[in-house]
């Protein structure tokens, strides 16, 4: 649930707090966020109560998005050159009545500062009455890419999740369309389409109970937008089915209100809210995670965590490394490990001290080679909070562990290491998990180059920069801690 009693409390929660490095920064306080929509270079999401959040970079969020109508849990979509907002203008509540109204309205911009910012008059597209087996709030909109038809799902735990068809040109209900029940025991439903499958995401668990909220996002899928939506064990969502996409973790509880954002092929994000963030006083915050796909099921990716890693190429499985002389270690040679005097003594790993003085002191090239957990292959990835971010992530510096030697993009669209990290834009890296679980690594800037380029394997053993292509393993990497 949500609703009337929580709507009033939302605004009071919007205040400034210190955030940890794993959360959206700024003031990402929102409940029931809509799908994130980009408008004129800025990101927008709308929540319960009438307001919403704006971000210029997708990482630092602040209040300021506006929409009329109040009510609960809107959804948003760009359709052509206009923006469609769908929202429930009422809120029922599990213990109250369940009369609800779903409305649509349009705007040509989401920027409240624009002179063109003006919503059309809201149009009702669905409703529920008191004691009906439905609670008409929490809408989600889908524009079917295969047919051009537009669908809206809505509902809460109180009765069914329903789907209706609306006209993508007007936002009005298609004449004669009859609502169809597609799930129970959900709220905050979301409809998406991918690769021949329609997905219905719903939120199960307890809403609006702070750190005790058990809200969690589940999914079922169907070949038909009208269902049946079955989970991974074949259970119909009309019988309560649903495979988990994300639940509590990382000191945050109550995942709800899924939204999908496709940056480009292979780069997808999912937005939702945490009912309570332990590091932010237990308030409800916007969350953005990589969205992964496996066997045509969606999974929540992981927020990138700082640490020291092998950076492994997906192309060959070799490791990014400094192009320095390999320094041999003693031990294990001869008789294939069966030497008569050999005892089961541990061998110390090569340390930075063993090799550092042998390395050149100026720029050193990078290459890709067999991973041997040697110092020239261990990279420490550290967030740089002052460098800003991108949708769902922040910039990082990538340095050889134990040193200040930093990975950097060059003007000739190659990569090197410089002896000292300086904070220059070409030394800042955007790290995003891709839909297949691998990562792309993108410099914030390539000197003298306007193109967005990513770290790539031009050969098995040679790194470079190139234009991202999800269909090629040349552009994918893994961060391994082993």
């Amino acid at each position, binding site marked *: 649930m949500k609703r009337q009693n929580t709507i009033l409390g939302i605004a009071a929660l919007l205040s400034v707090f210190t955030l940890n490095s794993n959360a959206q920064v700024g003031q990402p306080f929102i409940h029931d966020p809509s799908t994130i929509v980009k408008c004129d270079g800025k990101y927008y999401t709308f929540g319960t109560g009438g307001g919403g959040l704006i971000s210029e970079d997708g990482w630092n969020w602040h209040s300021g998005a506006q929409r009329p109508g109040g009510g609960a849990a809107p959804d948003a979509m760009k359709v052509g050159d206009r923006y469609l907002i769908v929202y429930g203008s009422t809120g029922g509540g599990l213990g109250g009545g369940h009369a609800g109204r779903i409305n649509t309205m349009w705007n040509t911009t989401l920027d409240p500062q624009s002179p063109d910012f003006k919503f059309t008059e809201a149009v009702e597209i669905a409703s529920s009455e008191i004691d009906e087996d439905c609670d008409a709030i929490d809408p989600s909109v889908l524009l079917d890419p295969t047919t051009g038809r537009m669908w809206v799902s809505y509902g809460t735990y109180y009765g069914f999740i329903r789907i209706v068809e609306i006209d993508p040109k007007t936002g009005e209900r298609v004449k004669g369309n009859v609502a169809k029940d597609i799930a129970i025991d959900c709220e905050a439903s979301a409809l998406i389409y991918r690769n021949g499958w329609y997905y219905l995401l719903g939120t199960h668990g307890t809403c609006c109970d702070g750190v005790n909220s058990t809200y969690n996002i589940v999914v079922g899928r169907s070949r038909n937008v009208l269902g049946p939506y079955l989970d991974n064990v074949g259970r119909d969502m009309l019988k309560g089915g649903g495979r988990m996409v994300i639940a509590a973790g990382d000191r945050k509880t109550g995942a709800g209100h899924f939204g999908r954002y496709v940056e480009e092929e292979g780069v997808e994000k999912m937005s939702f809210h945490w009912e309570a963030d332990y590091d932010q006083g237990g308030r409800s915050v916007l969350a953005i995670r990589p969205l992964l796909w496996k066997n045509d099921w969606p999974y929540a990716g992981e927020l990138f965590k700082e640490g020291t890693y092998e950076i492994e190429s997906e192309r060959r499985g070799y490791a990014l490394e400094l192009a320095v*002389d*390999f320094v041999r270690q003693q031990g294990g040679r001869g008789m294939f490990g069966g030497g008569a005097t050999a005892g089961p003594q541990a061998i110390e790993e090569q340390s930075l001290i063993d090799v550092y003085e042998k390395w050149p002191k100026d720029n050193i090239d990078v290459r890709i080679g067999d991973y041997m957990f040697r110092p020239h292959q261990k990279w420490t990835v550290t967030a740089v909070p002052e460098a800003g971010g991108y949708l769902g992530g922040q910039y990082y510096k990538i340095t050889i562990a134990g040193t200040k030697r930093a990975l950097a993009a060059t003007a000739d669209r190659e990569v090197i290491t410089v002896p000292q990290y300086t904070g220059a834009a070409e030394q800042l890296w955007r790290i995003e998990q891709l839909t297949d679980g691998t990562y792309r690594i993108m410099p914030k800037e390539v000197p003298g180059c306007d193109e967005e380029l990513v770290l790539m394997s*031009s*050969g098995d*053993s*040679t790194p*470079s920069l190139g234009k991202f292509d999800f269909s090629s393993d040349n552009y994918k990497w893994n961060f391994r801690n082993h």
Partner: protein
Amino acid sequence: MTNKRNLIFAMSVLLSFGLCQNAFAQFPGGGQGPQGAPQGAQQARPAFQGQAPQGGPQGGQQARPQGGFGARQPVTFEPTDITPYFSPSTKKPMAPDSEGFIRRWLLLEPITKSTIRNSNTPFVDSYIREQFGMQYFPNQMTLIPRDGDVVKVDGKDLKWHALDSKLYNTKLFRFATSLENSDRYGILFWAVTVINCDEDIENIRLAVGSNSASMWWLNGEEAVILSGDRRMVADDATSKRLTLKKGKNVLRGAVINGPGMSDFCVRFIDENGNPVKNMTITNE
């Protein structure tokens, strides 16, 4: 590349003789100890026998090291037939093959590097830069040799051979084994070819695989270095983006190997990794 067969054989030698250099004195490959003087001045010739040996390119008449631990059986190698691997180059310009690999090369008979005959482990960057930075013969980095030209290296006459590989890769090992009195392990090869372009071809990369370490220069500029004990893998290492200029471009490479099969494969690839083929290849 050092493989297990080499290692087992080497260990058997060591077991028989202890860790002394004399163990190498009768190592197959011909009449020279690791610290010994270069081989005699008799000029080697590739053995074109006109037909493939049974078993095709991987067959051959090469005697193989036999025996395992504790066994030592000296082996005498005879020159093998080069025909399955190479044919003599012609004057007619050659195109890259369907995958863009460059098959026409001027190859210098191998330079003996006895100290690495039994191991590729020294092939770190600084070592191979030192080895390829030495001057072995005059005009080493500018010469476009002709077929049959002879250079003297460490008192030994070595001949350039203009050859077209029948395979996408250039089997240096089989080039060496086809020669009389040539070492086949612990050797350094020089290779030269000429790339002719009708126009500048920009933003392409030289893509190389080699067994073992190698360095490559395009028009005198270092393009790629492959260090370490390497396998030959197509598109293993690439150059930075470079330009093949209109007209003649000289591509030069040096490959060093201890034990194992020496070879290389070279092509140019575009931004998307696709082969670049709008060129011809000559040896002059």
